[in-house]
């Protein structure tokens, strides 16, 4: 396989967009990546679009074809890659394979979703269509409900408290304040969301034991990366940030069928594969972007990916290890919690953040001397997970 360089990155701020449709959002992010890479005059061989549900959210299909048209990339190959909330990660994996295999030299990967076209409970329903239709969905099972059932067991087993979950929310919202692309720009306090006797009114139950501030917002957004060979990246005079490792693994569709429901097997396996391919270990990682769609997941994933022993993620969080400036900053971008989680965009946005960090251009949230980054994109409730190791080569 050929090495694959991320030569260009682009994003649009995540928010509730007022103007423009899904394709405009995707094209803006894509154009930003093309401009960043400086490939305006070179042909793009292929476009991979990560998007989960444009049909249900926006009543539009075949969006990848609309995107190449919008960006005048014809006759580039184009397709949409759908893998639930890991659609972005899957699109990157496909783009990676295209370049690594020698099939394509320049690939644009865009991830995006426009979820706020529908009211919150409808978005919840659309996302919930991922669950098993007869064994879960019919009961009103949602992604927060699955996370709630997981959280109850995980918290009980490892002594994690709502204080720990609040620390994740507070940290990531603080990081979001340093990220102009983050949807949520608000400092919260433990008093306001947890310890004040009336905090439950600000922070109501979503799916007990998870509350509003344990959940990511519903956002619109898009992000893009341009993948190419080291030779072309060199000619473009771009830093050599490579995708050093890719891992993917799946698990049972229905949560009830997992032998140990607190074991996120697909996370462990995807991370292991990505590390093996990169010839790296968790201790080599300088910065990580994890899939904190729910606060509990940041803690659980940090353990399953191998950064901390099972049951020690919460202590690491409490000790400040995962803060910007700590030994392993997690979600300096604000994560899904503050940056937002436009489902198809997330996996790509995570890689964009890592590239900014490894290039040293992450502004106020820059992790010092970051050379190697890790991202984890969690599809379904952990039934289809992607992990990436990216590295800045000298």
């Amino acid at each position, binding site marked *: 396989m050929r090495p694959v360089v991320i030569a260009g990155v682009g994003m649009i701020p995540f928010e509730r967009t007022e103007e423009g449709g899904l394709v405009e959002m995707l094209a803006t992010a894509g154009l930003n990546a093309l401009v960043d890479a400086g490939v305006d005059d070179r042909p793009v061989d292929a476009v991979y679009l990560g998007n989960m549900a444009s049909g249900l959210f926006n009543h539009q299909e075949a969006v990848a074809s609309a995107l190449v048209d919008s960006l005048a990339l014809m006759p580039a190959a184009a397709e949409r890659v759908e893998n639930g909330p890991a659609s972005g990660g899957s699109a990157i994996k496909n783009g990676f394979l295209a370049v690594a295999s020698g099939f394509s030299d320049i690939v644009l990967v865009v991830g995006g979703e426009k979820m706020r076209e529908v*009211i*919150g*409970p*409808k978005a*919840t*329903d659309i996302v*919930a269509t991922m669950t*098993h239709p*007869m*064994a*879960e969905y*019919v*009961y*009103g*099972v*949602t992604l*927060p*409900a699955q996370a*709630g*059932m*997981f*959280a*109850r*067991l995980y918290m*009980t087993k490892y002594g994690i408290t709502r204080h720990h979950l609040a620390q994740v929310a507070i940290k990531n919202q603080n990081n979001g304040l340093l990220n102009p692309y983050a949807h949520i720009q608000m400092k919260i306090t433990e008093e306001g969301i947890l310890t004040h006797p009336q905090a439950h009114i600000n922070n*109501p*139950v*979503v*799916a*007990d*034991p*998870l509350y509003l501030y344990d959940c990511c917002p519903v956002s619109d957004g898009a992000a893009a990366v341009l993948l190419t060979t080291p030779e072309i990246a060199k000619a473009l005079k771009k830093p050599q940030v490579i995708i050093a490792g890719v891992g993917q693994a799946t698990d*049972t569709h*229905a*949560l*009830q*069928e997992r032998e140990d*429901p607190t074991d996120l097997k697909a996370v462990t396996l995807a991370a292991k594969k990505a590390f093996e391919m990169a010839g790296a270990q968790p201790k080599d990682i300088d910065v990580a972007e994890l899939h904190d769609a729910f606060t509990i997941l940041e803690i659980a994933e940090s353990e399953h990916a191998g950064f901390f022993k099972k049951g020690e993620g919460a202590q690491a969080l409490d000790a400040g290890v995962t803060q910007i400036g700590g030994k392993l900053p997690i979600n300096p971008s604000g994560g899904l919690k503050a940056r937002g989680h436009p489902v198809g965009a997330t996996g790509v946005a995570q890689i964009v953040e890592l590239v900014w960090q490894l290039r040293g251009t992450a502004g106020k949230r820059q992790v010092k001397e970051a050379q190697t980054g890790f991202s984890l994109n969690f599809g379904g409730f952990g039934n289809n997970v992607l992990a990436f190791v990216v590295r800045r080569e000298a």
Partner: protein
Amino acid sequence: MTGITAYKCNKCGLVMYPKHFRCLKCKGREFEEIEPAGDAKLLTYTVVDQLPWGMDERGRVLGIVEFANGVKATGLVKADDPKLGMKLKAEWGPVRVVGGEPAYGLTLIPKK
């Protein structure tokens, strides 16, 4: 009657619900259809206040149970004060309204 059908692998005995075309453990393709039997033990649960569009209620308890014969399933728990490990009795009842018609599923009632 619980109304749901689970599948026991003829080769290795693994009990599965919902249906798979191949056994999750040994890839066997022949199964015995079984009904969940015995008391259901509550393995985990959540109390949902933010339900999808069309479900105008709060405090809906959803849980995963394991029956005495090994079947594990998600269901609607009709308990005001759910507790991990509590024993429940399963019934087949309306769990949601879809297109104006009731949809049926597993309802779980605390055992007295």
